[in-house]
């Protein structure tokens, strides 16, 4: 069958499956809508959490990011997995024992304050919209590349599907859809990886192929890669260019941010027991780790394949570079999308790919007759073009499209649900209309979800600058505001309303201001960014991506000192804390 119709068939079938599941698992009350009736098994919740967590960025972009960053890419691998340890040990079991519906609800009750709830809702909404806009964009991109429709059309289809199952099914609907989406996305990710691993090293497990010898060469994959990238003027693949403190802080900000993301935390509200919450976090990370330990292997293998294609012979010889007319079929396909671009700067009819930003390599490049790097590669290609590079059948390519869509939709649905719960449960029921009936609240939740989808779709269609700063902004805010407030709420009885609010505001404002200053978020019209975004200008050499760590430390310091300067929390709150610390 032709690739396009096959893609339509597989993506269409996956949509039919998701919608079928949504109809079967409709929400009947607010308990179903917010936390799936607290009846999800730890294993199913683990899978759903994994799909919720792994976004379009994890599926499409991460391996490519690592392929070009090498060791520096480790911040994402450790950062986006290590947070689950914090979640399992420090937050999930206690929040499950608390047994309510949302994260701001915990903050509001623990700190006996509506103001704290509003601050938490504001953080949640900023974090979640920043994140969801990227997902909607991801859906649009996958559609436009594989189904050759406009990004807008792709976006509208994606919005329609999420609308059906998030609005109808609420948490219950998205949980079981996410289980199906996890299966689709992990299959779609690992199949091409296994084939490429076999072709390159003869070892079918990508995790082992990562350290294996390249077939018939006598040298290991990473050694060969180190060798070839350094002779092209790049930094060694296995060592990085970022400073140690920056790598440390970015990793920590991503880990803590992960643990503080509301859409991840609420997943642990859906299991029946405290011990299920602990176990479920283990399953979740296990399912996530399958993709996260495959990704670095995919990154290294695809970088190696790319360089082998462009540099088939010895570096510096005329015949060493690929003749433009001889480029393979997949190269032509991706050139058409604009994601691969060749510019024959020295007019020799061949492609030269090297690091022309490295002054030390300049004389060597000139002696070869090279006049600049001629190949521009979008990092997303590394995953998307993998099946074609490995000559895999068309159904695998179609499957990768379905996997990318599944990854984006599952994350989008989870985010939209926490946004709608924050509106209907925290703002409407919690603050403006406490006497609202369960039925009316469920309706409000559905309307809020529908409105959130429209806003997310709009943000995906016309992404404002701040949407691109997911890593810095969403994770930085979660690390600096929500995570410390929840952690202190469980582990420090003495922290009171005044301390928590002051701490959250400090962390929030400091982190936001730092990112605005160096990257520009909302104040671009007023001239932001004002700072020069480079290591010598950063505070302690910490980039905006890692600054959430300082925001978090400030939050802890302010929350604790203000609490000791003001009255202790009331007796009943101290009892509540005692109570959530014990499973029964």
């Amino acid at each position, binding site marked *: 069958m032709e690739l396009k119709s096959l893609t339509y068939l597989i993506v269409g079938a996956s949509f039919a499956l998701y919608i079928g599941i949504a109809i079967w698992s409709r929400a009947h009350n607010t308990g179903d809508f917010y936390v799936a009736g607290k009846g999800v098994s730890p294993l199913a919740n683990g899978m759903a959490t994994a799909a919720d967590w792994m976004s379009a960025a994890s599926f499409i972009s991460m391996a490519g990011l690592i392929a070009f960053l090498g060791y520096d890419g480790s911040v994402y*691998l450790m950062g986006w997995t290590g947070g689950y340890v914090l979640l399992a040990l420090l937050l999930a079991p206690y929040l499950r024992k608390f047994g309510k519906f949302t994260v701001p609800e915990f903050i509001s009750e623990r700190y006996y304050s509506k103001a704290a709830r509003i601050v938490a809702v504001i953080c949640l909404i900023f974090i979640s919209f920043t994140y969801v806009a990227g997902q909607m964009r991801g859906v649009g991109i996958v559609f436009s590349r594989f189904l050759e429709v406009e990004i807008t059309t792709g976006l509208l289809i994606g919005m329609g599907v999420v609308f059906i199952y998030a609005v109808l099914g609420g948490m219950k609907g998205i949980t079981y859809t996410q289980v199906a989406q996890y299966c689709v996305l992990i299959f779609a990710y690992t199949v091409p990886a296994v084939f490429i691993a076999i072709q390159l090293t003869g070892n079918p497990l990508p995790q082992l192929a*990562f350290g294996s010898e390249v077939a018939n060469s006598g040298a290991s994959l990473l050694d060969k890669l180190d060798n070839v990238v350094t002779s092209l003027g790049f930094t060694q693949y296995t060592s990085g260019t970022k400073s140690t403190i920056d790598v440390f802080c970015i990793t920590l900000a991503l880990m803590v941010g992960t643990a503080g993301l509301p859409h991840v935390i609420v997943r642990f509200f859906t299991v029946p027991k405290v011990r299920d919450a602990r176990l479920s976090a283990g399953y979740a*990370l296990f399912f996530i*780790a399958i993709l996260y330990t495959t990704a670095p292997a995919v990154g290294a293998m695809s970088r190696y394949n790319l360089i082998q294609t462009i540099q088939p012979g010895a570096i510096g010889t005329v015949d060493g570079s690929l003749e433009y007319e001889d480029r393979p079929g997949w190269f032509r396909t991706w050139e058409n999308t604009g994601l691969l671009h060749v510019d024959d700067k020295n007019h020799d009819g061949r492609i030269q790919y090297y690091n022309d930003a490295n002054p030390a390599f300049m004389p060597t490049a000139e002696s070869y007759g090279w006049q600049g790097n001629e190949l521009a590669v979008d990092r997303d290609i590394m995953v998307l073009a993998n099946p074609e590079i490995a000559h895999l059948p068309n159904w695998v390519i179609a499957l990768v499209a379905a996997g990318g869509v599944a990854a984006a939709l599952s994350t989008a649905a989870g985010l939209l649900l926490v946004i709608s719960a924050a509106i209907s449960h925290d703002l409407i029921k919690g603050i403006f209309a406490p006497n609202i009936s369960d039925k009316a609240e469920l309706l409000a939740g559905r309307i809020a979800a529908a409105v959130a989808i429209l806003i997310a779709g709009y943000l995906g269609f016309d992404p404002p600058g701040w949407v691109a700063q997911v890593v810095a902004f969403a994770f930085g805010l979660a690390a600096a505001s929500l995570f410390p407030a929840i952690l202190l709420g469980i582990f420090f009885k003495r922290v009171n309303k005044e301390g928590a609010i002051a701490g959250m505001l400090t962390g929030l404002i400091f982190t936001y201001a730092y990112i605005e200053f160096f990257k520009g978020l909302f104040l671009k019209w007023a001239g932001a960014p004002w700072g020069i975004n480079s290591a010598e200008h950063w505070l302690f050499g910490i980039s905006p991506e890692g600054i959430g760590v300082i925001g978090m430390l400030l939050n802890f310091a302010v929350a604790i000192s203000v609490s000791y300067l003001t009255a202790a929390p009331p007796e009943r709150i101290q009892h509540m804390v005692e109570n959530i610390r014990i499973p029964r």
Partner: protein
Amino acid sequence: MTPENRSAYWRSNLRLVGLCLLIWFICSYVFGILLVEQLNTMRIGGIKLGFWFAQQGSIYVFVALIFFYAWRMNKIDKKYDVHEE
């Protein structure tokens, strides 16, 4: 549950959490970041050890840690008779 039992239970929980977080920190921040260059002089399965911890090993340890914590906590819950039915 008596207040003594309650605080003994909480202390054993904190000890376990502390131990797990120490391992969490060592396998990622120490082995994968702070000592990466020193460890890179050794190899595991054809990969430089520090690099391996940063891109593979730490993730395996994280998964094992959560299951270990869940298993140990279930035992502590039983010991103090606070386990769920």
